[in-house]
């Protein structure tokens, strides 16, 4: 592998890594407050990508308002899921919530098809097709938009968690709901807000992903792969997600390049092998807290 190829692959890996990090953020935010995995998260991203596509390209309201619309839709879906699915299941084992989010997975998939209409094979956001070159490296304009948007989401959420009063309150609820309630924090509202923000971040990340990969029904597969980044970082870590995403991006790009000639499309399955290895070696991830619940 010569240096130019390695550089190009590294750049693509870093871009995909940041996008994976932004996609995985929603899994971790939900896990922190509800101790369960939101399997409907891939479809929130897919639905939002379609909403933004239809609003901007088919209805022509411009890309920025369309993205705002998608974020609002994501927030509404997340908050509604908390109210209708997660809250009634409080106190039941986490497995019940996983199964219920799987139902929402199908509902949102159906909604995406319904919104997109019969020809839901999709398209692109029609960004300008400028290509920037620097030596051996070439970058599309859409790559830059995607990585900027995804990085912005991650930075925003991490900064909010760390520096704002609201973020600190949300962390308190995630840490110890009873303790937070004893200090007078509105636990239910904060949990709902966490789910809503997870949905909104998933929606924005979905739009960023679609800017790079195109709008298509297969977008949710990327989000499922991002679960590996989430697990790698540790399910209850927020800032660690960037490293998890970038590691996943590198593993995917390089394994695909090296093994692709023998096993076509290996990159698509690399993420899931990473997931199995992480579960085997370090199930709480690189930055997650290791709770004593191993049985």
């Amino acid at each position, binding site marked *: 592998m010569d240096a130019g190829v390695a550089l190009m692959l590294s750049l693509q890996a870093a871009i995909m890594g940041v996008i994976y990090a932004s996609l995985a953020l929603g899994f971790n935010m939900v896990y922190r407050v509800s101790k369960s995995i939101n399997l409907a998260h891939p479809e929130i991203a897919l639905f939002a990508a379609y909403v933004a596509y239809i609003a901007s390209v088919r209805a022509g309201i411009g890309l920025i308002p369309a993205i705002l619309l998608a974020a609002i839709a994501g927030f509404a879906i997340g908050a509604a899921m908390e109210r209708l699915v997660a809250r009634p299941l409080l106190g039941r084992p986490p497995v019940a919530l996983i199964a219920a989010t799987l139902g929402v997975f*199908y509902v949102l998939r159906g909604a995406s098809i319904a919104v997109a209409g019969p020809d839901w094979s999709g398209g692109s956001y029609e960004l300008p097709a400028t290509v920037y070159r620097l030596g051996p490296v070439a970058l599309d304009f859409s790559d830059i938009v995607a990585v900027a948007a995804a990085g912005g989401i991650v930075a925003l959420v991490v900064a909010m968690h760390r520096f704002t009063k609201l973020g600190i309150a949300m962390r308190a609820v995630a840490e110890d709901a009873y303790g937070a309630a004893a200090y007078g924090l509105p636990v239910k509202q904060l949990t709902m807000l966490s789910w809503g923000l997870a949905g909104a971040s998933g929606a924005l990340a979905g739009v960023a992903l679609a800017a790079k990969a195109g709008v298509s029904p297969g977008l949710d597969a990327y989000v499922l792969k991002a679960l590996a980044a989430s697990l790698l970082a540790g399910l209850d870590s927020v800032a660690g997600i960037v490293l998890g995403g970038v590691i996943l991006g590198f593993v995917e790009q390089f394994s695909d390049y090296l093994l692709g000639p023998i096993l076509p499309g290996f990159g698509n399955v690399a993420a899931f092998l990473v997931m199995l290895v992480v579960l085997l070696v370090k199930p709480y991830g690189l930055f997650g807290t290791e709770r004593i619940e191993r049985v």
Partner: protein
Amino acid sequence: MPAGVFKETYLADMAHLRYPIHWAALVAGLALLLVLPVMLGSYGAGLAVMLMVFFVGTVGLNITTGLAGQISLAQAALMGVGAYTAAYLANAGVSILLAIPAAALAATIAGVVLGLPSFKLKGYYLAMASIAAQAVLEYVFQTIVDPYQGIEINPEAKTLAGIYLGDGAPLYYTVLAITILAVIAAANIGRSSLGRAMKAVRDNDISAEIIGIDVTRTKALAFAIGSFYAGLAGALYALASPSVGWDSFTMETSIDYLAMVLVGGPGRIIWGSLLGALTIRTGWSLLASVFAASAAVKYLVLGGVIAFFVVKEPDGLIGVLRRIKEYLRLWPFSY
């Protein structure tokens, strides 16, 4: 109505068939199952065979999810392992009656190897490991096992003593016999010490550990048994179809399996699985044929049904039926 039902011997307590009405129902049910292909014709018998195939797979998932409380999203891929093993063995000249148990064992091994990372961890980690397992197995099917989507199965391997088992009434009776054996075995697993250990792990794994249950072993066994039934279902699928292709073993089929367990009645291995398989499969075909529903409507309906049952009816249709029965028993009084 007596004040209670009293059992005086251990045998009476453990009996599957306790009252004369059970014996009558058994005889009537078996007779009905035996004459069913005559009543339904070949098309109806084919539908019944596919229903039994999915019933066997659902029974397996009901042991993993319903009894042991471990969500698995790899049931379809493990069914694929069974189907491809049976197909390859049949094409290599092995008789199908040998290929079926071999296929079930292959699926068990695949399931245990892929589930290995998660057995020591809490419930939802098996869900993640099984998502990964489903994706990895699908990839293996698509690139290595079955790159041209569709493996024809040699019809000669399905012939036993001059009778072709892959079609019509012989197929129906073969599948029926295997299904009945598998279901009796599953019912007894559910009542054995292993089944009770699984229920203890499902309800509270820490307490289960404290009373001396080996939680890791119980989870591994639950997943292995579920995989065995998935492989058996796959082998029966291979017996019933002229060819197998990987599009039958996708993640969506796995979600359908989970829906069958959740809608039918998790933990109710036989009747819950049967009701679930019946409801989801007829539901799909009704939506497709009678209402001519688009894909969007199908997803919306199935997703809504899954979420509704998990949130509002955790005991599934079996729980609903039990409430109806209780209401009728007490009618016209409310208690």
